[in-house]
Each structure stands twice: as structure tokens, then as C-alpha cells.
């Protein structure tokens, strides 16, 4: 059996598990309602008078902050609690294959949720003539943003058999990744820290790297940032699982 076959089998089981429990439907409804509300009401989509989705994507780091850990917290914590971890890790798969399979399944699920926001794209196209390339880049950035949060949640989920602890830990870590580049925080830091330090801290932030995508720029440095957060977190997951 090839590695890819093992990853696919685990991913398939995981993705089906979302849809056989109410989790998937509750998540989808809340995600769509929340992004809709934030975009059109709090984001002042109509009042802006812009043919773009800034009002939509701008909220994603915050919406994902709560919802992505909610989706990812069960990934390993539940396996540990139910004892199925023992079953999974004594099957002929390497730990990294199991980690990647579970991560990809959840990421695909978040991708589905994101794809279901398509009405907002239709709306903006009906009302004006937006730059659809920019919107596509925004979606790509949003997917990577969700992937980064999810990988962090994978790591915290592997640390504990308690889903609540996994949830809280990942929210705190993701919050740090937002705040490091959030303008009220960087402005505050700029009063006493050197600009170089402020930039360095901001470089760790998802907001800084997500901004580029929102402007329609797919910068290899931003891609590299998100891929390295995902890669590092998944590697840390494997270390945690090995030393359980």
C-alpha cells in the first residue's frame, strides 16, 4: 500500500465523519451566517461603494479564530480519548501519513465551507465590475489562512485528550498570530520599539501576509509564510504524538 493510498483512506474516513455528525451542518450554517452578517452589516459592504470583497475577507482572520479551532479540536484529542489512537497508529501507516490525512480532510472541509460563500461573489459581480483575479487571490489567501490555523489546532489537539483545552490553546496561539500584525497593536508597539522590531514582530502575523492576497498579490514570501506555519505545526504534531 502506497503512502498516498493510506493518506487518502484516512482523509476519506475523517471527511465522512464530519458529515455523519451534526458538526458539519452546524459549522456551515454558522460560518455562512456569520460571514454574511459581518460583510453586509458590520463590514458596511453597500455603504463602501466599492466593487470588491474587502468587507468580506477583512473579517476572515477573526471568524476563523473561533471557528477553525472548533473544527480541528477533535482531530487528535478525540482519538486519544476514545483510544482509537492506538488502533490508528498500529495500522501499517507512518504517523506523518495519518497526520497529513487528517489535516487534509479538515482543510478540505474548510475549503467546502469557503466555496459555499460564492453568493457574495455573484452579488459583487451583479452590482459592479470587480477585479475577479483579486477576488480569487483573496480566496486563495483565505484558504491558506484557514490552513495555518488548522495546523496549529492539529498540534494543540495532539497534546491533550480534552477538546476544550485544545480549543482554548489554539485560539490563544492564533490570536497571537493576529495581534502581532494588528494595527492597534503595532501602533502601540511603535511608540517605544524600534521600527525594525515592530516589523519583525509583524512579520510573524497572519494579518500582514493575508493582506497581500486581499490586494490581489500572490507573493511567494506570503505563500512561504503560510506553508511554513502549516509545515512547522504538522511537524510539531508528529513530535507530540511520538512523545505521548
Amino acid at each position, binding site marked *: *500500500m502506497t503512502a498516498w*493510498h*493510506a493518506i487518502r*483512506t*484516512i482523509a476519506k*474516513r475523517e471527511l*465522512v*465523519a464530519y458529515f*455523519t*455528525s451534526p458538526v458539519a451542518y452546524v459549522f456551515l450554517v454558522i460560518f455562512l451566517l456569520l460571514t454574511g452578517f459581518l460583510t453586509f452589516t458590520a463590514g458596511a459592504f453597500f455603504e463602501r461603494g466599492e466593487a470588491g470583497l474587502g468587507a468580506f475577507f477583512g473579517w476572515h482572520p477573526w471568524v476563523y479564530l473561533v471557528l477553525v479551532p472548533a473544527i480541528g479540536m477533535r482531530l487528535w484529542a478525540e482519538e486519544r480519548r*476514545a*483510544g*482509537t489512537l*492506538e*488502533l490508528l*497508529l*498500529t*495500522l*501499517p*501507516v*507512518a504517523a506523518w501519513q495519518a497526520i497529513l490525512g487528517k489535516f487534509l480532510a479538515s482543510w478540505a472541509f474548510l475549503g467546502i465551507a469557503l466555496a459555499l460563500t460564492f453568493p457574495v461573489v455573484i452579488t459583487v459581480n451583479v452590482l459592479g465590475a470587480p477585479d475577479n483575479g483579486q477576488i480569487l487571490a483573496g480566496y486563495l489567501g483565505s484558504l491558506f489562512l484557514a490552513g495555518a490555523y488548522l495546523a496549529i489546532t492539529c498540534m494543540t489537539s495532539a497534546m491533550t485528550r480534552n477538546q476544550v483545552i485544545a480549543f482554548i490553546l489554539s485560539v490563544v496561539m492564533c490570536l497571537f498570530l493576529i495581534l502581532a500584525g494588528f494595527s492597534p497593536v503595532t501602533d502601540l508597539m511603535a511608540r517605544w520599539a524600534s521600527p525594525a522590531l515592530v516589523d519583525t514582530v509583524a512579520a510573524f502575523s497572519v494579518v500582514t501576509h493575508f493582506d497581500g492576497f486581499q490586494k490581489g498579490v500572490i507573493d511567494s514570501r506570503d505563500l512561504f509564510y503560510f506553508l511554513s506555519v502549516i509545515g512547522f505545526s504538522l511537524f510539531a504534531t508528529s513530535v507530540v504524538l511520538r512523545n*505521548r
Partner: protein
Amino acid sequence: MIRIENLVKTFGAKRAVDGVSFAVERGEVLGFLGPNGAGKSTTMRMITGFFPPSAGRISVGGHDVVDSPLEAKRLIGYLPEAAPSYPDMTVAGFLGFAADMRGLDGAARKQALQRVVDLCFLSSVLYQSIDTLSKGYKHRTCLAQALIHDPEVLVLDEPTDGLDPNQKHEVRNLIRELGRTKAVVFSTHILEEVDAACTRAIIIDRGRIVANGTPAELRALSAHAGAVTLHAAGASAEKLAALGHVEPVNGAFRVTPKDKGAAGQLALAVVELARREGWKLDALHTEEGQLDEVFRSLTLPDTVKK
């Protein structure tokens, strides 16, 4: 098939498994006995590659479990202690997942599923979600998962735990049957299972092997093994004392031989004595030794110390 040398596992300062060595060949069913916390599950988890040993070597079918884990794991079917499974899956879905993970497909997959469903009597609950099943069915679902790829090595951690007496009987028969062509290790603390299913048994206590042998060999370790109990009117302890150590037991005498090697002749000697002395012989039997007695004498010190 399974070869273990000087296996050690430490958790912090505690040595859960402390220098265990044994081997299991094809056609053998090895019973793994010991009190709770003796290191049975820890040893099994190391054999199946769930966690690595702190020291020592394990090879399964010639593959080192640490160096080539995937090759070793392919040969093993494993039933973990609490028989875990994914509660929101159906039995068919779960077994299908296990089959996929074992690389089965097409007709072979279908056949394997049919085989384990028949073997573990699961056909009536095939499309039920696992969390709605009774404990016995959950247990057998997990057992079926361990058998799906017809493995050469079976590691079963308390396979009869939580089953009713009929199911226990079925599972023991199944283990004995599977043991003809595979190498089987199973743990239990039910001593009668040793006689019912094992070709060999190991008693482990505080991480160390304290006895290793066939069920008959283990019974012979009993203090009373080979003793002759005599019910006879007119029998006297003084006369019997010439044959061995004598003690009264419920109106009868138990004669324990001084030399265990000569146990076979003891019954004859007692009969001869009774005939000479004119005792009215009512009943006479040679004790085989009791496994629970052996078990207690080998593992008791721990409990007493606590």
C-alpha cells in the same frame, strides 16, 4: 514469528516492563497472565509498535518493530485493551476502513469482510452505528478489525473481557482455531482460559517473567502438585508419614511427596500401604496442581506489600 529480547519500558522512574524475553512461533497460542499493572498491555503495545521500547529488541516475522515498523505492522492483527472503534461509524463502514488501510480491494476486500463478519457473528448489526451496539458487539467489531487481513501474528489484549459466558466460549474456540496456523499472543487474568486456549503461558509480575511453560508445567509448580489425597477409614497419619509430608484435609489426608520427580509412584505406594494395613479405601486422587494457586504464589508478594 515474534521474538522479544530483554524488553524494557520505563515510564519516568517506574519500570513497567523490566527485561522480558520470549518467543512465539507459528502454531502457538501464548497466554499472557499477570495481575493488573504487571506490564501485559505495555508489552503488547510495544510488540504492535504503538510506542517504542526503552531498551531491548522486538522482531515480528523477522522485521524489527523499531527499524521497519510498517513491515512488522502489516503482519500483525491487534485488538487493544478497551477494544476501541469509531463510534459514529457503522460496523460495515469501520471494517471497510480497516480493509482499506490493509490495502485490500476488489474481490479480496469483499471476501475478507464476509469472512470476519461470519467469524465474529456481526451480520445482524452490519449497518448499525457502533455507538448503538452492546459491549459484546463492540468488542467483536474490534476483533473483526484485527482479523480482516488474515494476519500471521495476532496480538489480543484481553479478548474475552466484557463478554458473556457464551461469547467467551466462542472467542476461546476461535483463538484456539486461529492458533493452529498463526502465532497468537493474548493476555487475560482469567486462569481457566489458559487451559481452554493456550499451548503455552507466561506469568508476568511487576514487569518480569516469573513463569513460562505449558499449562501442565505451570500447574506442576504448585506446592501440592503430585500430592495424593486419601479418604480411608482407619488411616493413620503416622503410617503415611513414611511416604511424604502428611496433613489432614476435611477428614482425609493429603500426602505431598518429598521428591517431586517420584510423584508418579506415590499413589501406588499409598494403595499398597492401605492394603497392607487393612484400611477401607474410599477415595484416592492425585492432584494436578491448581493454576490459581501457582498464580497467587508467584504474584502475591506484590499485593501483600501494598
